[in-house]
Structures are given as C-alpha cells and as structure tokens.
C-alpha cells in the first residue's frame, strides 16, 4: 500500500523547491504567458505595417522602348501605383523589374516577359502585384472579345464551383487551431515536465541530495509518486497556461482585426463545452509526459545530460502532432491507443465540437495505461542501485583502445553504437543501393553492412567471435521444433498486424511482393529464397542475436533484453505496418538465443520464417489466400496453442541439458 502522507511530503518539498526557483518558473509560465502571444502579436503587427508600407512605397519598374505606348501595360502599372522608367535592359540598381515584349502566339494580343531579381522579396511582391493587374486587363479584353463576337460570357467558364463551409468562418479557424494548438500544448508539456524532471531526478543526484532522501524511511514508490505528481502538475499548469495564453492572443488578434475592418479574418473562441474534455486530456497526457521525462532523467548523471536525453522526447511528442494533421488520420482503431497522436486528434475534435464522451474516455484510459507502464518501470529503476551509482562515462583514448586485451563480449554502449550505426548505414546507403539494383543492393547491404560489418566491428573491438556470437552447436531436436514454430509465428504476427492496422499492412506487403516478383525473373525461386530469406537470417542474427545480445547479457534483465531486442529488430525494418510482426519475431529469436545459448536455432527459425513468406508470396498453393481467409480464427487458435507448447518443449530440453 502506498503511504500517501509520504507522497504528499515529497510533493510539497518539490513544490517548495520549484516555486522558489524563479528561472524555472519564468521558462514555464512567463514564456507562454508573455513571450509567445507577444511574438505573435508583434509578427501580426509587423505584417500589417509592411503591407501598408508596400502599398505606399514608390516602386520603379523598367519597360522596353517597344512597350512605351502599350495601353494595357501602362494601365496595369498605373493601377499598381508603379513608376515607369523606359530602359533597353534590366538594371537592378535603378528598377525592381523590367518588362520586355515577347512574340505573341496562338492569336494572343500581346505577350510580356518580366525580368526581376528572384532573390529579392520586394521585387517578387511587385511582380505579383503587376501580374494581378495584367490578369485583370486580360479578363477585360477577353470579355470585350466575347461581346464583340456576340458570345455569352459563360463560354469561357462553363462550370462554376463554390464552397460552403457549414460551420462558418469560426469552424475554419477552429480547424486551423486544431492543427497548431495540440502541437504547442505538447511542446509546453514536454518543456514544463522536462525542466522539472531534470531537477527532480538528475538534479537531486548531482547535488548529492538523492542519498539523503533514499536513506529515509520513505518508500521508493512513495518518492517516485511524489516526484511524478509534482512533475505532472507543473506540466499541466504549463500546458494550461499555454492554452489560456493562446486563447487570449487569438481574442486580441480578433479585436485588432475588427478594428482594422477585417471582421471575417479571425474568429476564434475556445468552445466552453470542450473545456472539461480538454482539461482531462491535458492532465492525462501531462501524466504520460511526466512519467517519460522522469524515467529518462533518472538515467542521467547530471542535469545537462538529462537535458540532452530529453531532446528526443520533445521530438517524439511533436512528430505525432504533425502526423495527426495528415488527411485520413482519424481518432479510431489503433490511433486511440497511440500516445500523443491520440491527444492531438482528440483536441482537434474537441475544438470542432465533434468529440464524443466515449472518445475522451478511450483516449484518457489509453494514455493512463501507458503512464502506468512507465511508472512501474520508474519504480523498478528507483528500487535498484543503478540510480545511485550510474556507470561512469568512458573516456576514449586511442592508444589504450588499440592496446586493449581480447574480450568475450562487447560493452553495452558499444553494442548500442553498433546497432544504431548499422541502422544509419543500412538506411542511408543500403536503401539507395537497393533502389538502384534490388538484387545486388540487398546482397551488399545485408552481407556488407550487417553481416561482415558486425564481424569487423567485433574484431576491431578485440572481441573473440565464438563466445560473443554464441557459436555453439545446439541439440538437433531444436531444429525440428523451429520448423513447427515458424508458421505459427507467421500467423500470430499477421494477426497482430491486422488487429492494429486492419488492411493498412497490405501496402507494405504489396511492395515486397512486387520486389520479389521482379527479382524472381532474374535469379529464380532458389535465388530469391537465398537473397530474401537465408541472407537476412544469417546477417541480422549475427548483428542482433550475436553482437548486440552479447553486449546486453548480464547488464539487463532477461525480459528487458527480449523487449529491447524485439523493439530494435522491429524498428530496423523501417515499416510501421510490419512492426507488430517483426517485433514479435525479434522477441522470439532473442528468447531462443538466450535459452539455447546458441545463435543457430534462432538463425534457422529466422531462415524458415522468411522462406515461408518468400515461397507463399512467389508460388502460393492454389486457393491459398481463400483458405487462409476462411480459416483465419482456427489457424490463429491453433498457433496460439502450438507456439507456447513449442517454447515449453525447448525450455524442457534446455533444462534437461543443464541438469
């Protein structure tokens, strides 16, 4: 049971510390309250003033002597309030632009060529003004010609379209605000929670106060809860300050616009009926951001390091905000559960007055579930010794590095560096290579960047290959069991993809299918199996379940290793729709490598898993797809029985072996 009195004490202590730190308060509250609206108003004012200045400014334009008597051009220039200078050619020192004659084609009356400095904003503005006026002249000439020929004006525009937004201008503004406001609020939540989390976790460690707090009888869970609640409350306050500030700024802009006669320009008011939903969504998302920020900051050795660690969180929060603005992304299905993106979509709906109570409850529940997961991880981290004694930073020294003794495995940071380095190289070099020539590109990317790259990396770090890569001969029955696991893994992965993305996963499968079909024409079915199934199985297993796994063993718990392996393996495939399947497969391969203490069963399973996909794509049995569709549930249930049974058998075999 949580001792809430201690949670309250920790919360109050943190609150006292924060409210006495003027700089943090300024960043959290003064920025949204003064700076952002101030900047917005200033920009609007500047825009308006510049517009007026350009209207009154005398702009000189040059015209060729041949056009001196051109009535239409003279009229357009007069309407645009431009001063005319007759010159033979364009001189940027004396004129903004120069108009010369072009040869009329297809019965045109006149044709003009405008020369201007396209790097000069003012010149671009003058060109645009002149063009508008010339277009008006052209329209008049067109109508006059139609009148002369006795034709109706509608002949030039047989179809006319008009748009009627049923919600009026206010809905337009709310729609636009729904695109910008969630992103700004998320940013403010991350900034607010991030600053607090840095101070509460890394700051305490840096100042040496963490020890005194941890040796008090307050439980770690109580300390974590107290700090989390404080970080979340500051995030909520910061987010709401931003919301209030934006609303007030919009009202201010409306007043200014009305004063200058633009009554229809801006018409935004926060709908009061949306306020409870907005508050609830903000509180829930702030709790998620707070837990994530506190978790990240707990790994940092100093406040500066925590600041660096929190940068990716800012990006992670803002990118979904951009994604939520894409047409077709709605608050339904998997989107309800995806953190941050669900908040943005809900805020959009709330502002438009389209959100339902069930949507608010679903988004808040999903966000709170993610928060609970992070809090469990946080409490676990704070219960261990890592918090008090984080690993010291290693200093890279080329001389000592070259003279290192041979080792049996990589360090964790070296393993992570390998995987991220390989990922970047694979993406930046491998993808263009594969686009240029799929067969050779894939072979070079897999064997060169992943397979041989991993081996070279291990040798350069003076790591012995056999122990690091788990090159141990396993028991032969394991291969038979892997043959049974492979199809069940395909079915479970496919079901997870369908559950999360519906038919959205079909697009990625279609692209792979097309690539395989193209390759089959060049290298045949056997070649395709080698390239698309066996090659990745060998190279990816060397990288993930070889080099990377060796760096994780003994430094993370087994469930954490399996989860991180699945996550990285899924991300490496760079496809959201394929992620569920590749994540599950990565977890299973990692478990297999850990349980059997050998890389080979996982490699074999990976190869069979891939081969099944290749064979079923290139030469599926007759009526295969129809059969699978008809027996979808039966196949899934059978897989869910067979799959754990196979893992249980492997576990038994390994236990017997160990015993």
């Amino acid at each position, binding site marked *: 049971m949580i001792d809430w009195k201690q949670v309250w004490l920790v919360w109050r202590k943190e609150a*006292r510390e924060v409210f006495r730190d003027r700089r943090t308060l300024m960043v959290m509250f003064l920025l949204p309250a003064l700076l952002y609206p101030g900047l917005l108003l200033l920009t609007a004012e500047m825009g308006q003033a510049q517009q007026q200045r350009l209207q009154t400014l005398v702009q000189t334009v040059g015209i060729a002597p041949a056009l001196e008597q051109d009535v239409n051009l003279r009229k357009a220039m007069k309407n645009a309030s431009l001063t005319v200078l007759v010159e033979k050619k364009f001189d940027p020192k004396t004129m903004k632009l120069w108009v010369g004659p072009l040869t009329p084609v297809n019965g045109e009356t006149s044709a003009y060529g405008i020369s201007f400095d396209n790097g000069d904003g003012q010149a671009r503005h003058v060109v645009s003004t002149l063009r508008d006026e010339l277009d008006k002249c052209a329209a008049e000439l067109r109508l006059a010609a139609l009148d002369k020929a006795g034709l109706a004006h509608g002949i030039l525009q047989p179809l006319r379209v008009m748009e009627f937004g049923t919600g009026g201008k206010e809905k337009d503004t709310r729609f636009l605000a729904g695109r910008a406001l969630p992103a700004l609020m998320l940013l403010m939540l991350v900034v607010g929670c991030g600053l607090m989390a840095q101070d509460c976790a890394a700051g305490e460690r840096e*100042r040496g106060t963490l020890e*005194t707090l941890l040796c008090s009888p307050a439980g770690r869970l109580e300390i974590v809860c107290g700090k989390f609640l404080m970080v979340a409350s500051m995030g909520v306050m910061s987010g709401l300050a931003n919301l209030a500030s934006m609303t007030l700024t919009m009202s201010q802009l409306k007043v200014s616009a009305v004063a200058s006669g633009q009554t229809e320009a801006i018409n935004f008011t926060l709908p009061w009926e949306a306020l409870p939903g907005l508050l609830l969504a903000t509180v829930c998302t702030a709790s998620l951001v707070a837990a994530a920020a506190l978790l990240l900051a707990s790994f940092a050795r100093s406040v500066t390091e925590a600041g660096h660690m929190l940068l990716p969180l800012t990006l992670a929060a803002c990118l979904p905000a951009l994604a939520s603005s894409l047409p077709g992304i709605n608050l339904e299905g998997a989107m309800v559960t995806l953190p941050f993106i669900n908040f943005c979509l809900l805020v959009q709906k709330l502002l438009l007055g389209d959100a339902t109570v069930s949507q608010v409850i679903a988004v808040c529940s999903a966000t709170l579930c993610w928060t609970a997961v992070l809090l469990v991880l946080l409490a676990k981290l704070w219960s261990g010794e890592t918090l008090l004694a984080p690993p010291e930073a290693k200093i890279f020294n080329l001389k000592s590095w070259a003279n290192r003794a041979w080792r049996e495995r990589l360090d964790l940071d070296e393993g992570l560096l390998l995987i991220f380095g390989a990922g970047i190289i694979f993406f930046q070099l491998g993808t263009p290579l594969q686009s240029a020539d799929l067969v050779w590109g894939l072979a070079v990317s897999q064997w060169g960047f992943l397979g041989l790259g991993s081996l070279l990396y291990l040798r350069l770090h003076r790591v012995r290959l056999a122990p690091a890569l788990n090159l141990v001969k396993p028991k032969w029955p394991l291969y038979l069991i892997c043959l049974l696991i492979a199809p069940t893994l395909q079915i479970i992965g496919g079901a997870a993809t369908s559950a999360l993305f519906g038919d959205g996963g079909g697009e990625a499968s279609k692209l792979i299918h097309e690539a395989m079909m193209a390759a089959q024409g060049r290298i045949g079915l056997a070649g395709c199996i080698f390239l698309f199934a066996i090659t990745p199985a060998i190279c990816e297993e060397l990288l993930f379940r070889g080099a990377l796994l060796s760096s994780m063993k003994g430094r993370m718990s087994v469930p954490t290793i399996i989860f991180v392996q699945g996550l990285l393996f899924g991300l490496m495939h760079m496809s959201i729709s394929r992620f569920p399947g590749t994540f599950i497969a990565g977890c299973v391969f990692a478990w297999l490598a850990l349980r059997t203490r050998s890389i080979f069963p996982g490699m074999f399973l990976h190869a069979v898993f891939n081969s099944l996909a290749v064979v079923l794509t290139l030469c599926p049995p007759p009526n295969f797809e129809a059969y699978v569709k008809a027996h979808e549930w039966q196949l899934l249930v059978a897989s869910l029985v067979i799959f754990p049974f196979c893992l249980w058998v492997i576990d038994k075999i390994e236990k017997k072996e160990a015993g």
Partner: protein
Amino acid sequence: MLEVRDLRKHFSDGRGGEVKALDGLSFSAAAGEALGVLGMNGAGKSTCLKILATLLRPDAGTVLLDGVDLLAKPEETRRLVGYLSCSTGLHRRLTPRETLEFFAGLYGLEEGEAKRRADELIARLGMSEFIDRPCGGLSTGQKQKVGIARALIHRPRLLILDEATSGLDVVARQSLLHLVAGLREEGRVMLYCSHHLEEIEAICPRLMIIHQGRSLGCGTAAEVLAENQADSLPTLFSRLAGSQA
C-alpha cells in the same frame, strides 16, 4: 550493539569484470561507542557505510543492530539509522528548519514532536542565526551542522558520519569535532569515517582499518598497531600504500 558479519559487495567494472569493494568485512561496536573507520581511497569505507545506511544491498553478510537485521526490511530499519554523507545532501532552496521538518515527517514524527525535536537540535547545534536562510546560501560549516541535525532528527540508534569535516577550515573543524564528540548519547552507536588520523584519535576510543574490502583490525589504536606489527598509524598506511602500488 552493532554487529557486521562477513559483508561482501562486488561491483561490475563495466567491462564484464567485477570489482570486490567488500570482501568479507566483519566488525562490531557496542552501544554508546564511537568507532572510527579508516582506510585509503577505494578501500571500501563508503561502500560499507552505504550498506549500513541501506542505500546499497550487500551480496552476502548480515548487519544486526540491537539484534534487528538491518538488511531484511530496509524501509523499516531506516528509522534506526542516521546517515550524513560527505556531500551533506541538503536541498539548497529549503531552509534548515524546513529541511528538519521535512525529514521529521518522512521519519514519521508527528508535527508537534517534529517541531520540538527541531527546536532542540537548533539550540544544541547553535543553528538559530541561520535557521530560516536557504541552505544553498550557508557556509560549509553551517551546512554540516544542518546535515548532522537532519541525521539526528529521529533519534537514530546508529549514526553514520562519512567525512563530516571535509571542506571545513581549522576553526569550523574543531568546533564540529567538539560537537560530534558529544553525540554518543542515549546508547547510540556512532561510526565516524575520516581520512584524518588525528580526528579519529580525538573522537573515537576504538578504530577499524579497512583495506581492500577487509578489516585489518578493530580495537584501540595500540591493539590495531600491534595486530599489524606497526609502530604508528602513518607507518602502517605507508606500508599499505606500498603493498597496493
């Protein structure tokens, strides 16, 4: 009575190997006794004190304080221990009074009792002139006093002072030593860890030398010297430094 038996603690060296911080450390201290803990840098002193303060868990060994196993239920036994680390560990934006009241609350003292105890310590340690100033603005000596008061707020049975005089000038150091010497009250066990031999000799009748995670002897200075066949503590330390090199 504090009894430490066969305490062992290994740390990962970050390269797949292990560092033995404590390698079967055993010692005892009687109620009302101040035991000085001496040792060179990296000998295992701070690890030992952090284990006793329940900040670290040992790989093996037992710690009994008046018969209670300190390691079995860390959250409950923390009420018996007062710990002052070398960094004092004060929240810079809280005042000393708020610090004392905050920790009194964490240790489960009622509001009235916490206030009385805080006033008692303020008077005893001479903290009244800076009691309502933020800790961040205090001098090192003043911070150490607040740190000691914080460690004593719940009347611990075991008081651990790790490098309590580090960073102090001569006058402040003498004043603090005088203060620490008077803390052996109410049958409390006090462990005083320092690099300064004269401090240990001034405060602690008995001392223990830790070297490479083991005790080289626990008793009066004469007993420890006899056990290690050395004529003075500086000589013994020079020898240990030589053997380590």
